[in-house]
C-alpha cells in the first residue's frame, strides 16, 4: 500500500525554502529532491521512514505514520563535521584534514560596497592580515599569512582560482599599472569560498610558490533544480572620515607674520580650504544578475554584473563589467565529469593624480583661479624674479582638473577540467585541467601643455600597455579506497603541472606637446617621443604527489612531495624539492572519549612540518645580460651621440628561498557543537633569503646584487572560536572570534657578525631625498623604525631644535637626542631600532544575529603593537614650511605642539603607536520570503562601512601597511543600501 506525501523543506535558520534536499525512503532506493521552492512529493509505503538530508544541514528522519503532508525545517549542521574543504588538487572532508586550512564561506563575508575580493575576508581568519593600501576605490591590498618570510622576494600568497594558479603581481613592472588590484576582475558576488592554506603541510602541494601560503578561491556553481534568477544591487555613498588639521587662511597670515615676515608680500587675499576642493562625496552602485539551475547530469550558472564606484578624491573612480559562466556535465554513466569555467571582466579606472600633499600645504590665502594665468586659468606661484616657480606647491585643483589618467584592464581566466573514473581499478580516477589566464590593458596619462608642472617638458602623453598570457596544463591520478579488513583508508594523488607565462609591456612617452586638442590619441603632436618595450617569459614545471593514510579513521597521516623546475634560476639550481608531512589524531573518536560526548563534540590534535619555496623575484636575474641605453642616456664621443650598452650585475648561483614550517594545533568542539574552533602554534624558518646584498666592491658589475643570504623567523599562535550564542526558532546569534600573535625576527643577514653594523636602511620617506626611516637588522623584526631617542622637557614636549639645551656651545644633535651609544657624541650611530610596523596581535570579531525576518551583523577588527611613522607630521609640522626658500607652505597645526623650526625626520617622536579597533562594517537586513505565494525571496539591507576607528594615532588613519604614513589616499566612511531578489 503506498501513500503520497507532499511538503516543503525549509531552513531552520531563516525559514527560506531549501531546494535540492534529498528525500529517501529509508532502506530503499526510492527518493526525490525538493524543487526550487523546497517542495517535494513522493509515493512511499505507509509505515515508511523518510530521511531528509542536505549538505550543511543535519539529516532528519521522520516517520510517515499516516501523515500526507510533512513540512519540515532542517537545522544547519553547526558542527560542520561533514564540511568539505578544498585543498590543492582535490578536496577533503574537514575532519580528515591534517594541515591548517581555514575556509570562509559567502555567509560570513564582509558586507558592503566591496570592489576588491580580498576585502571580503579581512578580519575573518586568524593570522591573516589583509590591509588595503589606501582608500582608493578597488585599491591594491597587502596580504600576509603568518607574517612575512622574505625581504626582497614577494610576500604575497599564491592565488588559485577554480584550479588555476594566477599571477597576482601588479600589472606593470614599471609601476604605471592599468588597474589597481589585480584581483578586481573577479566579481565578489561570484565567489563562494575563500580557503586559506596556512601551514606548510597544507600548502606544500604548491611547493615553490607556497612559502607565503595559498588562497584558493572557489566560485559559485549551479545546483540541480529549476532555473532561478536573482538580482543583487546596491547604492552607496562615501565621505571622508577625517581631514588633516592645517591653518586656516587667517591663522596662516598670523603665522607668516610671526615666523616668516619676508613672505608676507606673497600672501593673497583669498580664503581657500584646499582640502575641501579635492574631496567629494563618492557614490557607487552595483548590479548583478545571476541565472542558475540544472538537472542531475548538468548544472549551470551564469552571471553578469556592473559596478561603478567613485573615489572620495575628485575624478577617481573604478567601473567594472564582468561575466562568469560555469557548466558541469556528467557523462558515461557519471564516470566522466566535465567542468568548464570562464570568467571575464573589463575594468576601467580613472586615477586621481597625487594631490593630498599639495592640498595640505598649499597656501590658503591664494585663490584657486587667476584670470591672468596662462596655465589653464589656475593660480600658479611666481618667484621673486616674476617667473612662474616650478619648485613651489603646484595648485592641486589644476592638477585634478587638467591631468587625466585612465586605465583599462581586460582579464579572463578559464579552465576545463575532466574527471574520469577509471573503472577497472576501483577508486582510481584521472583528472586533467587545462586553463588560461589572459590579461591585456593600458594606462594613459594626459598632461596638457597648459598644466604647470615641476618638469618643463610641457605637456605629456604617457601610454603603457601590457599583454600577459598564462597557459596551464595539469594532470593527476587519484587513487582513493578504504580497506576495511585492515581499517585503513588510502587517498593517493600524483601529477604533473606545466605553466608558462608570457608578457609584453610596450610603452610610449611623448612630451612637448604642440596641441592639446587630441588628448592621448595623437602622440604625433609631440616634439619628443620615446618608446620602450619589455618582453618577459617564465615557466614552471612540476611533479607532485600526496598520500593521505587513515587508520581506523582516527590516525591520519599526510605526506606530500613536489619537485619544481623554474626558469628563474640557472641550470645548477633550477630544480627544487619541497616536502611535507603531517599527522592528526582524532581524539574524539577514541573509545575513552565516549563518556565525554556530552562535553566534547570534536577533538583533534595535529602536528605538521613542511618545506616550501619562494621564487617571486622577476625573470632572468641569474643571467649575464646587457641593457642598451635609451636615446636620452647616450654619450657624446667625437661628433656623435653613441647609444651605450651596460653589462648588468647578477649572481649566477641564485636559488630558491626556502621556508621550513612547523605547526602543532588542535581542533575542538564543545557543548553539542555550540562552541568550536582551533588553536595552533607555528614556527617558520626561512633560509637562503633572496636579498639584495651589497657585494664586495669590484667583485660584480654593480654594488647590490640579489643573492641568497640571510635567515628570517616567524613564530606565532592562532586561536579561533566559533560560538552559537543563541539558537532558537526565531532568534539565532553566531559569533566568530579569531586572534593571532606573530613574532618576526631577522636571524641572519649579510654582516650579522659585525657588531658595529647598523643593518640595511629601507623605507624612504618624504622630505629630503634618500632619507630612510626603517632598518633591516639582525635580532630585530623586519622593518623596525630606525630613529634617535628624543629628549623631552619638563612640560612633556620634545625639546625644540636650534637651542643649546646642553649648553656646550653648539647647537647640534646632542641638544635634542640621547647619546644612545654612550660614546659622548650624538651622531648617526645613535639611531637605534625602535618598534615595528607589523601588528604583534590581531583580533577579528564577527557577530551575526537573525531575529525573525531581521538580520544584524558586524565585523570588528583590531591590531595591537603596530607602529606608524607619521611622515606627514615629521615633514610638515615645522616652521621651515613657512620659511621655505621658494614660497610659504601650510603646516599641520600640531607644529604648535613642538615649535620645531626645521624638520626632525629621525626623531622617535614621530614613531607613533598605531594600535586600533575598527568596525569594518555594520549591516541590518530584512528578508521577506514566499512573495506573492511563490518561492520569490526579497532582502533589503543597509550597511555602514568603516563606521569607526578607535586609536591613539594622531594621523588620519592608523592602518598603514608600510608603516610610513605619507599622504595616503584616505579611507572613506561608506553608507550602502541594497536589495537582493530571487525568483
Amino acid at each position, binding site marked *: 500500500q503506498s501513500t503520497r506525501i507532499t511538503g516543503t523543506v525549509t531552513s531552520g535558520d531563516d525559514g527560506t525554502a531549501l531546494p535540492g534536499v534529498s528525500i529517501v525512503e529509508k532502506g530503499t532506493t526510492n527518493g526525490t529532491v525538493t524543487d526550487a521552492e523546497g517542495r517535494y512529493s513522493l509515493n512511499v509505503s505507509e509505515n515508511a521512514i523518510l530521511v531528509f538530508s542536505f549538505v550543511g544541514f543535519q539529516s532528519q528522519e521522520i516517520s510517515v505514520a499516516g501523515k500526507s503532508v510533512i513540512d519540515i525545517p532542517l537545522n544547519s549542521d553547526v558542527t560542520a563535521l561533514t564540511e568539505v574543504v578544498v585543498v590543492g588538487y582535490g578536496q577533503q572532508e574537514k575532519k580528515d584534514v591534517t594541515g591548517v586550512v581555514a575556509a570562509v564561506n559567502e555567509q560570513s563575508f564582509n558586507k558592503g560596497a566591496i570592489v576588491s575580493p580580498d576585502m571580503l575576508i579581512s578580519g575573518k581568519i586568524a593570522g591573516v592580515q589583509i590591509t588595503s593600501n589606501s582608500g582608493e576605490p578597488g585599491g591594491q591590498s597587502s596580504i600576509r599569512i603568518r607574517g612575512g618570510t622574505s625581504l626582497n622576494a614577494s610576500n604575497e600568497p599564491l592565488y588559485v582560482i577554480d584550479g588555476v594558479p594566477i599571477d597576482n603581481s601588479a600589472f606593470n613592472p614599471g609601476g604605471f599599472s592599468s588597474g589597481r588590484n589585480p584581483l578586481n576582475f573577479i566579481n565578489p558576488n561570484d565567489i563562494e569560498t575563500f580557503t586559506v592554506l596556512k601551514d606548510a603541510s597544507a600548502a606544500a602541494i604548491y611547493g615553490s610558490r607556497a612559502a607565503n601560503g595559498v588562497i584558493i578561491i572557489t566560485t559559485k556553481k549551479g545546483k540541480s533544480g529549476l532555473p532561478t534568477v536573482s538580482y543583487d544591487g546596491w547604492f552607496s555613498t562615501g565621505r571622508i572620515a577625517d581631514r588633516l588639521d592645517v591653518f586656516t587662511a587667517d591663522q596662516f597670515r598670523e603665522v607668516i607674520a610671526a615666523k616668516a615676515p619676508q613672505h608676507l608680500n606673497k600672501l593673497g587675499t583669498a580664503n581657500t580650504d584646499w582640502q575641501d576642493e579635492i574631496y567629494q562625496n563618492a557614490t557607487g552602485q552595483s548590479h548583478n544578475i545571476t541565472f542558475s539551475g540544472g538537472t542531475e547530469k548538468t548544472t549551470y550558472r551564469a552571471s553578469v554584473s556592473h559596478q561603478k564606484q567613485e573615489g572620495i578624491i575628485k575624478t577617481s573612480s573604478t567601473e567594472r563589467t564582468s561575466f562568469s559562466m560555469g557548466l558541469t556535465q556528467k557523462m558515461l554513466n557519471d564516470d566522466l565529469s566535465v567542468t568548464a569555467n570562464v570568467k571575464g571582466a573589463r575594468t576601467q579606472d580613472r586615477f586621481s593624480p597625487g594631490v593630498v600633499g599639495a592640498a595640505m600645504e598649499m597656501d590658503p590665502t591664494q585663490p584657486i583661479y587667476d584670470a591672468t594665468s596662462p596655465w589653464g586659468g589656475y593660480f600658479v606661484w611666481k618667484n*621673486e*624674479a*616674476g*617667473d612662474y616657480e616650478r*619648485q613651489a606647491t603646484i595648485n592641486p585643483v589644476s592638477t585634478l582638473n587638467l591631468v587625466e589618467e585612465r586605465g583599462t584592464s581586460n582579464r579572463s581566466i578559464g579552465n576545463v577540467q575532466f574527471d574520469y573514473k577509471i573503472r577497472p581499478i576501483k577508486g582510481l580516477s584521472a583528472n586533467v585541467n587545462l586553463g588560461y589566464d589572459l590579461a591585456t590593458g593600458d594606462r594613459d596619462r594626459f598632461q596638457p601643455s597648459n598644466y604647470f608642472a*615641476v*618638469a*618643463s617638458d610641457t605637456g605629456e602623453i604617457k601610454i603603457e600597455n601590457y599583454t600577459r598570457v598564462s597557459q596551464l596544463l595539469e594532470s593527476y591520478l587519484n587513487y582513493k579506497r578504504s580497506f576495511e579488513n585492515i581499517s585503513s583508508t588510502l587517498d593517493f594523488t600524483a601529477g604533473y603541472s606545466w605553466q608558462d607565462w608570457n608578457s609584453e609591456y610596450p610603452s610610449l612617452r611623448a612630451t612637448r606637446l604642440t596641441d592639446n586638442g587630441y588628448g592621448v590619441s595623437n602622440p604625433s603632436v609631440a616634439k619628443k617621443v620615446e618608446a620602450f618595450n619589455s618582453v*618577459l*617569459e617564465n615557466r614552471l614545471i612540476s611533479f607532485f604527489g600526496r598520500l593521505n593514510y587513515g587508520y581506523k579513521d582516527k590516525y591520519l597521516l599526510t605526506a606530500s612531495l613536489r619537485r619544481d623546475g623554474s*626558469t628563474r634560476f640557472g641550470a645548477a639550481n633550477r630544480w627544487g624539492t619541497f616536502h611535507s608531512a603531517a599527522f592528526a589524531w582524532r581524539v574524539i573518536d577514541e573509545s575513552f572519549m565516549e563518556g565525554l560526548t556530552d562535553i566534547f563534540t570534536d577533538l583533534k590534535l595535529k602536528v605538521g612540518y613542511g618545506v616550501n619555496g619562494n621564487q617571486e623575484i622577476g*625573470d*632572468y636575474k641569474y*643571467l*649575464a*645580460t*646587457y641593457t*642598451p*641605453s*635609451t*636615446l*636620452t*642616456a*647616450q*654619450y*657624446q*664621443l*667625437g*661628433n656623435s651621440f*653613441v647609444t*651605450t*650598452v*651596460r653589462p648588468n650585475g*647578477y649572481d649566477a648561483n641564485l636559488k630558491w628561498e626556502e621556508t621550513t614550517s612547523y605547526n602543532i594545533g588542535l581542533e575542538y568542539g564543545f557543548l553539542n557543537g555550540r562552541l568550536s574552533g582551533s588553536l595552533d602554534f607555528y614556527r617558520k624558518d626561512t633560509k637562503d633569503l633572496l636579498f639584495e*646584498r*651589497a657585494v*664586495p*666592491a*669590484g*667583485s*660584480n*658589475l*654593480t*654594488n*647590490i646584487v640579489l643573492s641568497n643570504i640571510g635567515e628570517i623567523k616567524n613564530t606565532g599562535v592562532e586561536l579561533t572560536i566559533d560560538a552559537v550564542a543563541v539558537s532558537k526558532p526565531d532568534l539565532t546569534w553566531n559569533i566568530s572570534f579569531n586572534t593571532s600573535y606573530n613574532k618576526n625576527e631577522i636571524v641572519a643577514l*649579510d*654582516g650579522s657578525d*659585525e657588531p658595529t653594523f647598523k643593518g640595511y636602511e629601507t623605507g*624612504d620617506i618624504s622630505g*629630503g*631625498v*634618500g*632619507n630612510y626611516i626603517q632598518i633591516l637588522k639582525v635580532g630585530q623584526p623586519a622593518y623596525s623604525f630606525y630613529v634617535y631617542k628624543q629628549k623631552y622637557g619638563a612640560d612633556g614636549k620634545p625639546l625644540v631644535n636650534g637651542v643649546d639645551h646642553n649648553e656646550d656651545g653648539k*647647537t*647640534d644633535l646632542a641638544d635634542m637626542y640621547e647619546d644612545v651609544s654612550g660614546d659622548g657624541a650624538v*651622531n*648617526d*650611530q645613535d639611531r637605534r631600532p625602535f618598534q615595528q610596523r607589523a601588528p604583534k596581535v590581531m583580533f577579528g570579531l564577527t557577530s551575526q544575529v537573525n531575529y525573525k525576518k531581521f538580520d544584524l551583523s558586524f565585523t570588528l577588527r583590531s591590531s595591537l603593537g603596530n607602529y606608524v611613522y607619521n611622515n606627514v607630521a615629521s615633514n610638515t609640522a615645522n616652521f621651515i614650511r613657512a*620659511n621655505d626658500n621658494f614660497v610659504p607652505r601650510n603646516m599641520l597645526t600640531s607644529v604648535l605642539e613642538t615649535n620645531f623650526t626645521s*624638520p626632525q625626520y629621525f626623531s622617535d617622536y614621530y614613531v607613533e603607536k598605531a594600535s586600533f579597533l575598527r568596525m569594518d562594517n555594520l549591516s541590518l537586513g530584512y528578508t521577506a520570503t514566499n512573495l506573492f505565494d511563490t518561492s520569490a525571496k526579497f532582502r533589503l539591507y543597509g550597511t555602514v562601512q568603516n563606521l569607526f576607528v578607535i586609536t591613539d594615532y594622531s594621523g588620519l588613519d592608523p592602518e598603514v601597511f608600510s608603516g610610513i604614513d605619507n599622504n595616503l589616499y584616505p579611507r572613506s566612511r561608506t553608507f550602502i543600501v541594497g536589495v537582493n531578489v530571487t525568483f
Partner: protein
Amino acid sequence: CTDLDVKPKSSATGDVIFNNSQAYLQFLARLYAGLAISGQQGPAGNPDIKGIDEGFSNYLRQYWKAQELTTDEAVIGWNDGTLPTYHLHTWTAQNEFINAMFNRIYFQVSMTNEFLRETTDGKLDERDATDAIRADVKVYRAEARFLRALSYWHGLDMFGSIPLVTEESTVGTEASEQATKQEVFDFIESELKAIETELVDARANGYGRADKAAAWTLLAKLYLNAKVYTGQDKNTECIAYCQKVIDAGFELDSDYATLFTLDNVNSDEIIFTINFDGNYTQTYGGMTFLVHASIGGAMTATDYGVNTGWAGLRTTKNLVNLFPDETGATDSRAIFYRNDQSKEIPNTPITTFKEGYAVPKFRNINSDGESGSSLEFVDTDFPVFRLADVYLMYAEAVERGGTGGSEASSVSYINALRQRAYGNATGNIDADDITLNFIIDERARELYWEGHRRTDLVRFGLFTDSEDNNLRAIWPWKGEVAAGKETESFRDVFPLPSSQIIANPKLEQNDGY
C-alpha cells in the same frame, strides 16, 4: 616536457651582444658615460648602482660634493640624509654619500674590467673580428684603462688603502684584498705609463675622448699629491708631465667665464671633459645638478638657461674674501650673485639659500645668452682637466722643490691666468710673490667649484687641522660651529663605507673611524 631554457627577448645575453660590431664602441661609450649619467634610461630609470636615490648616485655629483661641500668653497642647503655632515666635518662610515662615491668608483672599475675581459685577442679571435675592429679596440682598451686609472686615483685620494680589482677577476661576490696606498699608487702610475703610447696623440682624438694629454695630466696630479699618498715627493716627475701637456698645443681661452658655459665645447684650454646634453645625455646629477642647485633667491633661472633653481649651493665668505673685490670688477673670476644674499651664514641648519653668496659659475647658456637645448637638462660639459690647472700644478711643483722647471716659467704661467682675470697686467705677480699660501689661494680663485678643493687642501695640510694655525683651515660651520674650527686629522681621508666593511671582511677601516 621539462624544457626550462628561456632566453631573454628584450635584453641581450653576453654571447649575442658582440655580434654587433658597434658593441665595442657602445661599451666604451658606457665607460665614459659612467661619469655623466646615472643609469640606462635618461634622466633616471634602470640605475647603475642601488641603495641611493638615482639622481644622487651620479658620479660627478658625488665627486663634486665630496670635494667641495667638505671645504670652504661650498655649502648646501638640503636635508638629504647625512648630506649636511659633509660641511660640518661629522661624517661617519655610515654616510650614504660616501658609500655612493665608493660604489661609483668601483662601478667604473668593474665596467672597465669587464670591457677588458671582453676585448682580449682571444675573444676577438672567437668572434672573427676584422682588422679594422682590432685596430679600434686597441685604442679603446687604452682609453678604458685611462678611465679606470682616473677612478682609482679618486679612490686613492679619498679613501686611501682600497682593494685593487683588475680584469684578472671574475664576476661574482668574491672579496678582494685591500691594497696599500703605495700599491694603488704604483698601479695607477704603471697603467698610465703603459697606455701612454697607445693613446691617440694630444688633441687628436674625438671630442670627449681621452688622449695622451689626459693621461699626462692625471700622472701630473698623481705625482703632485704623491707625498700624501706614499710619503714621497714626486714633484720633479710632476713638472715633467706638466711640461708635456703645456707643450702639446693647448691655449688659454680668452674669456674665463666661457669655460663653464655652452661655449666650452670650442675650448682650446680644456684637456678632458665629462659630456652632457639636454636631449641625449640626461641626468639629475652632473651639470644639471650644478646649474640648478646654484640658483635660488631672487635669481632668475632663465638667465642661466634653466627653468628653475633648486636653491641649494652657495659659498662661504672665505672664498669671497680671496678676491680683491667681490663684484668681479677687478678679478673677473669672482662670479658671485649677491643681490639679496648675505655673505655670512649665521643660522643652522644652513638651509636658507639667501645666507651665503650664490655662485652661478656653471651655466646652460652661451656667450650670446642663448640657452641650451633643454631648460631642464643642461648641455654644458664639465671641464675635468684644463690647462690653467696644469700651469698652477707646474708652479706648485717648482715651489715645492721639483727640478726640471723654472720659476720664470711659473711666473709667466700664473700671470697668464691673472691677465685673463684682470683684463690687464695690474694683477700680475713676480717670483717673490709665489709662496705655497699664494698658490693655494690662487688655485681657489682660478679653480673653485671645479672639484679640486678637498684634494688641494689636504695636500697643503689645511683640510682638517693645520700645523701652524693657518686661518685657511677654518671656515664657517666647519666642526659644527658658526665661526668654524679645526677638525680631527683622520678626516683627511673618508672612512671606507660600513657596507663594504661588512661585504668584504678583508678590509680594515681607516684610522679614526
